[in-house]
Structures are given as structure tokens and as C-alpha cells.
């Protein structure tokens, strides 16, 4: 699934993203299932709040981690998320 860099992204209302103390990580919860996220994936998905697009998310994270060249990794993760229905384009 290819992602338009300008389209705003929101977390799916049919899924829930939350921090799990017992597992010391973020997870995505949905009917009878759970996906465990690593720190990077959690950082990216938390920014899918309906006010940002791919460019915005990259900008935000590159600033936060004082680095550049994150776009390919972020795009890949967001495409997977879109395919799995964790996020949607609005």
C-alpha cells in the first residue's frame, strides 16, 4: 500500500494503542488480538493523531531525535500500519 506524503493520518477508532506496564512496551489492542510494538513504532504511531501527515511525522521525529534521513523507515512502518488497519488516511 503506498502512502501519500500529504494525507493526514489518524489512529483507527477500531484499535487501541496503550502503554502496558507489565510488558514495558506499547501495544495495539483489537478484537481478541494484540500487537506488541517496539519503541520506534510506538513513537511513530502515537503521532498519527489526525493533525499530521508523513512529512509532519518525519519532521517531528527528526527534530526530537536530532537526526535526519528517517523518512524511508517511517514510510515503511506507516504503510504496514495502513495495511493492517491500525491507522487510516483522513
Amino acid at each position, binding site marked *: 500500500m503506498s502512502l501519500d506524503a500529504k494525507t493526514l493520518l489518524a489512529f483507527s477508532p477500531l484499535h487501541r494503542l496503550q502503554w502496558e506496564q*507489565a*510488558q514495558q512496551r506499547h501495544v495495539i489492542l483489537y*478484537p481478541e488480538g494484540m500487537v506488541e510494538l517496539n519503541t520506534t513504532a510506538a513513537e511513530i504511531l502515537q503521532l498519527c493523531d489526525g493533525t499530521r501527515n508523513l512529512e509532519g511525522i518525519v519532521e517531528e521525529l527528526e527534530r526530537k531525535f536530532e537526526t535526519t534521513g528517517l523518512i524511508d523507515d517511517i514510510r515503511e512502518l506507516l504503510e504496514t500500519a495502513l495495511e493492517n488497519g491500525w491507522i487510516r488516511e483522513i
Partner: protein
Amino acid sequence: MAGSERSKITNPRWLLAELTYSCPLQCPYCANPVDFADIKDELTTSDWLRVFSQARAMGAVQLGLSGGEPLIRPDLSVLVRHARTLNYYTNLITSGYGMSERKILELKEAGLDHIQVSIQSPEKTLNDQLAGTESFEHKKEVARLVKKHGYPMVLCVVIHRQNIHQMRDILEMAIELGADYLELANTQYYGWAHLNRDQLLPTREQFEKAEAVAQGYKEKLKGKMKIYYVVPDFYEDRPKACMNGWGTTFLTIAPDGTALPCHSARELPGLNCPNVRAMSVSDIWLHSEAFNKFRGFGWMKEPCRSCPEKVKDFGGCRCQAYLLTGDMTNTDPVCSLSPLHERVFEAVTSARAATEIGAAKPMVFRNVRNSKNLNA
């Protein structure tokens, strides 16, 4: 169990709360114990609230509210509200019977995350016949209301010989109702289903045909509807990794507070399952005899003990080993390496013979009268 294995105990992730064994439906493949009518004394509201809190503190995050029919519990919204406060993901597993739009809204407001509605067949006559109740139109209406109020909509259809030929219609019905998830659960032969196996177990040809239809739709519906296909293990040659391993992930609490490593484990003789009225969830999980009995690999006999695949399937299902071989410590006979593998073949042959002679025996429906008679 050896002390060294104890240190490897993982915490529960799933809590299945069977709130009641009462149910207005009479499905002949019900997973509840056959003697459910004699099991009384349901947990109180405060018992459940305590259990939810204790399991959550251990790391359980998925909560299934099931039964019987969980809608029968008048305190359902109170339980959901508490679960939401604890940040569980709460799944209501219902027949839809007794559900109203008002109740759907009330549960939504309490914080329920999802509703799974079961339908017995895409055809009214068979649905009502299997359910033992006129319920088809209402179930479809409930499915629409679930969707309307913004829940992820999960449709569950249990598959067996009476409806397996309707696979295409089942999938079309799920599309028509706008299901987000469709669970096609091939009957697992425990409880009432074990009793009615000759009438329920499809032939291999029927399985293969239905599976091909389901796989075709799975491809077609990618990105629109997720299809969970629960495989029928009687036609496999390796057992399922039952419960992801005993006492590793799943905790079931029965209506009377009995804690079970899987919802069928009540059938195992002498397992001595603990009760949440007497022990905390943590003590039950970590220290009870029942939860430690089949943890790890120390309990295994051959051929499992020396088998490299034991880390994948954990020897299969203890209940199936008991029901088909009479000994719960045996290898699950579904495994082609089991010296008793022919027991599965015998079950299949017996069911096929019953089909060919036109289902000589009527099915035993799951109701209080039959439960009492069978247990007398």
C-alpha cells in the same frame, strides 16, 4: 514441577470470564461442561471486580466476557466499567439474545471495546433449529446495531457438518452485515460437541471444500474484513499449540469461580482446579497444582519428551488427550507420532458412518434438562 521451571513462568495476557452458564440458546456444540446445570453459586459482582483487578495487576490485558450468555448478568455494565478503568480491552462474546439498542449504548458508555455476535447459520431455519430458539432476525439486527454504534463488529460462526456446505452464504452474510472480522470456528470437540461428534464432525472432503471457499474470500476481502479461520485439528497430523502452552497466557474463570488453564479443563478428572473465592489470582497462577501440572516439558511422556517439535505444540491439547485416549498425560492423538493416533481415525470413521446412515442418533441439545439427565 522442578524449581528451575518455576522461574520461567510467564504472566497471563488473556482473562476469559465466563460470567454465567445460563443461556437461552441450546447449541449442541456448546463448550460449556455437560454437567453445567449442577454447577451453581455464581460469583458475586465484588468477586468479579476483585478478579479483574488481580489479573490486570499481573499483566492480563485482553478480557473476554462470555458464558453461557453474559447479557443475563444484571451487573454486566458495572463489570465493563471496572474493566475500562483498569485499561483492559474488553470483548463481549454474546449470542445477541436479549440485546437491545439501549443496552448497546449503555455498554458503550461503560467502556466496552467490542461485541462479538454469534450466528449459527446464514439460513433462518437452520439457525433457529441449531440455537434451539427463534433468534435469526434478531441476531442480524444486533449485528447491524453493533456496527451502527461504532464498535468493531465481529461475527462468529461455528462450523460443523450441519452448516459447512453454507460456507459461501456465511461469507456473503458477513459482507452484507459489514463485519470487520469474521471468525469461522470449526467445532472443537469438547463438552457438548464431544457428545454430538457423530452428528457434527464433517468429512475431510467437506472440510477441504469449505476451507478453499474461505481462503478465496480471505484473499478477496483483504483490507476490508479480517477472517480468522480456526482449523479443525482432526484432519491435521500435528496437534494445535493448545492455549499457547498450559499456564503461559490464558486464564479462564468459570461462573462459580473455578480457575482453569483452558475453558475445557474442568473435564479433566482429578485436576483439582483452584477457586478465586479461596485464592488470589496470583497464587493460583504461580503456585496452584493445576496451573503447574502441564507447564514446561517435565510432565511429558514419549513420543513428546524427546520430540524437537514439543517447543512448538507443547504436546497438543490435554483435554483432547483425555477425551480420546483416557489419559490426559498422553500425547494429543491428533499427532501422527502418537501411538494412539488411530483414535482420531476412529472418530472420523464413526462420524462418516453416521452420515451415511442418515444421522441415526438425534443431537443432544444443550439445556438444563439434558444436562441433568446426562449427569444423573
